[in-house]
């Protein structure tokens, strides 16, 4: 199993590239936060960048991209139900406007 993992998992160079992207996205998030002109679209921009970072870590650092569908399904199931509960509760408590 470990030998198989070593062959199919991404290389060190890819890991570093992902980390650079993650760092850049974080910097970008904080920059966006301080730019007044972007205030009206701040929430969608930040959520998209957050989701991008989430996906990068899950796919490459946690190897979901190379590890096959079973583990992805288990994780996606948890993320989906959790997200649905968060969004549902926020909607019930009137967090998305009238």
């Amino acid at each position, binding site marked *: *199993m*470990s030998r198989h*993992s*070593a062959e199919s*998992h991404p*290389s*060190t160079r890819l*890991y*570093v590239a*992902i*980390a650079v992207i*993650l*760092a850049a996205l*974080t910097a970008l*998030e*904080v920059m966006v*936060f301080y730019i007044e002109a972007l205030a009206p679209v*701040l*929430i969608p921009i*930040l*959520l998209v*960048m*957050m989701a991008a*970072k*989430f996906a990068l*870590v*899950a796919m*490459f*650092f*946690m190897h979901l991209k190379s*590890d*096959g569908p*079973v*583990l992805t399904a*288990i*994780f996606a*199931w*948890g*993320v989906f*139900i*959790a*997200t649905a*509960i*968060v969004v549902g*509760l*926020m909607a019930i*408590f009137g*967090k998305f406007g009238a």
Partner: protein
Amino acid sequence: MEGPTSTGIPNRKLAMWTFIGSECMLFGTLIATYMIYRGRNLVPPYPHDLLNIPFITVTTFVLLMSSLMMVLALAAVQRNDLRATKLWLGLTALFGLIFLGGQYYEFSHFVHEGLPLSRNLFSSTFFVLTGTHGAHVAGGVIWLSTLLVRTVNGKLDARHAETVEIAGLYWHFVDVVWIILFTLIYLLV
């Protein structure tokens, strides 16, 4: 020991992923509570009085980089490069400790500014949410430290790469949770 499994995935690795799926609900509920109560705080201080974005950006960066150290540790142990394994495992744990130090500083600063746990709705939701995450980081640091000690003692090598991989999955998940918390708590203040 164990024979081949029905899915081809080792039992412990499948268990860790299942646990992570369950943890999504734990943090999901905590996040839902924080989001529902956002803007409902009636007693000062308020989030924007206290949250220090530049400071937390630095500790966020440290935690993100610890994930890089973690994958490098796994790659090292898989090719049985134990010197590199020790280096990267140690750095991962160290970066986790720096993050925890930052959180300790942040918490004590808030308390000093008049926000103990029982102060108001913001203190309740903020401390329990970020504190739960911090407890997960602390557990991860202890776990990684035992792996480091075992590597130093020569009891961990490429045959145990799966153990390092599973600890890594946990560590990355804790990092992923922080990616969400950083955006929702600090940037959408």
